[in-house]
């Protein structure tokens, strides 16, 4: 192996890479937050009496779950051009990841709502709570506990999947790495450094979610 490793260009580019990591975080957070909200709406659509809503919800979920996320990004970035819709890399990547997250979260919510015994809602309503109160104080807190684990996984997944933005010209962490790579041709060194940064971001996200989740599981900790 007569390859000379050169790490200096990587070290020089480090501030820019870290700045680009903020774009990665931003894209992931927005997609996750929107995905959580739209996913809940999709869940209610799929549980609704109206056939149109059920069909819409199921179509979204099945497409999101059965096609590659890179394909979804390409559809938002290139596919909408024929309809005269031109999205920037940033918007296209956020939209595609949101589309994907919403589909997966809708399924996760379904599991969460199924985990809460239907009798509890009835009991709360019998005690005089309105439909909304029962949802807010009895059902949702338990659903949230049930979905917290899968939600954490989904968040890590979005952070890693946002790296696909590179292939749609987005200058997030991977895109920025590719930019420096094309100027220096130090492919291995640059992507090795980026791999380390992703690893650290993923671990930080897990830690953050564990801390945020602490109040949720307070009651359970007290029990044990």
């Amino acid at each position, binding site marked *: *192996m*007569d*390859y000379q490793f050169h790490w200096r260009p990587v070290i020089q580019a480090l501030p820019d890479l870290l700045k680009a990591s903020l774009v990665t975080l931003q894209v992931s957070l927005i997609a996750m937050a929107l995905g959580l909200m739209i996913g809940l709406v999709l869940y209610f659509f799929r549980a609704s009496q109206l056939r149109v809503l059920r069909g819409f919800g199921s179509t979204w979920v*099945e*497409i999101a*779950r*059965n*096609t*590659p*996320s*890179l*394909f979804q990004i*390409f*559809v938002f970035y*290139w*596919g909408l*051009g*024929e*309809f005269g819709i031109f999205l920037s890399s940033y918007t296209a990547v956020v939209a595609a990841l949101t589309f994907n997250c919403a589909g997966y979260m809708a399924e996760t919510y379904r599991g969460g709502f199924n985990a809460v015994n239907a009798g509890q809602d009835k009991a709360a309503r019998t005690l005089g709570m309105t439909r909304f109160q029962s949802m807010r104080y009895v059902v949702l807190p338990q659903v949230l506990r049930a979905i917290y684990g899968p939600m954490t996984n989904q968040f*890590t997944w979005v952070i*890693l*999947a946002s*790296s*696909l933005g*590179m*292939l749609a010209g987005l200058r997030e962490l*991977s895109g920025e790495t590719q930019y420096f790579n094309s100027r220096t041709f130090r*492919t*291995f060194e640059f*992507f*090795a450094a*980026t*791999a380390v940064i*992703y*690893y650290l971001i*993923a*671990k930080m996200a897990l830690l953050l979610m564990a801390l945020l989740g602490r109040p949720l599981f307070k009651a359970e900790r007290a029990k044990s």
Partner: protein
Amino acid sequence: MTDVFTTLQWSDLIFLLEGAWKTVQISVVSILLGTLLGMVFGWLMSLNNKLITFAVMAVLDVFRSVPLLIQLILFDSFVAIAGFPLPAFWSGTIVLIIYTASLVAVVVHSGIDSVPAGLRAAARCLGMSYWQEMRHVTTPVGLRTAFPSWLGVALATIKDSALVSAIGYVELLRASQILNTRTQESVKIMLLVGLIYFIISYPLSRLGARYEQRQKS
């Protein structure tokens, strides 16, 4: 004015289907070998040795915490540096095999963990050897929890095979991009490609849903 772009032809459908066949090839090889490797890792983690469990877990966790795209580019550039360049199919598939194995290991580990310790001890008490007990007790019982999750991993691998296009292998997604550039008829092509991916992965995803329902009732 002569047009630089040519319209979509029937032969292009064959080009796409060839890409789809390569997607299937990458997926099948990755799922098969990834599952075998993942089973070994999962079994290693379930041995009562904290050091082995921790070591295997920590190493596999790296593959789950770094984007697959970055792993693909890294490995592809590494084999070039090291002087034994591989065809894109193999450098892509090797990365996908290891990635799949890291996911399968977790599934297998929790599957083995789901088998009650008392049941396993009882089998041993009846005179079964370790491997007999593994084969006739732990595997069938653990498979009940592991199988749906394994289907999920297999589905993910099929979809993740699209990333191999990033290191230059012409599978389904890459084939569609080539046609896109030539014909500029992105909507038709994307609908078609989406449909092909859907056809490949939907049966597996239905199977998972059916299995889930059957377990509930």
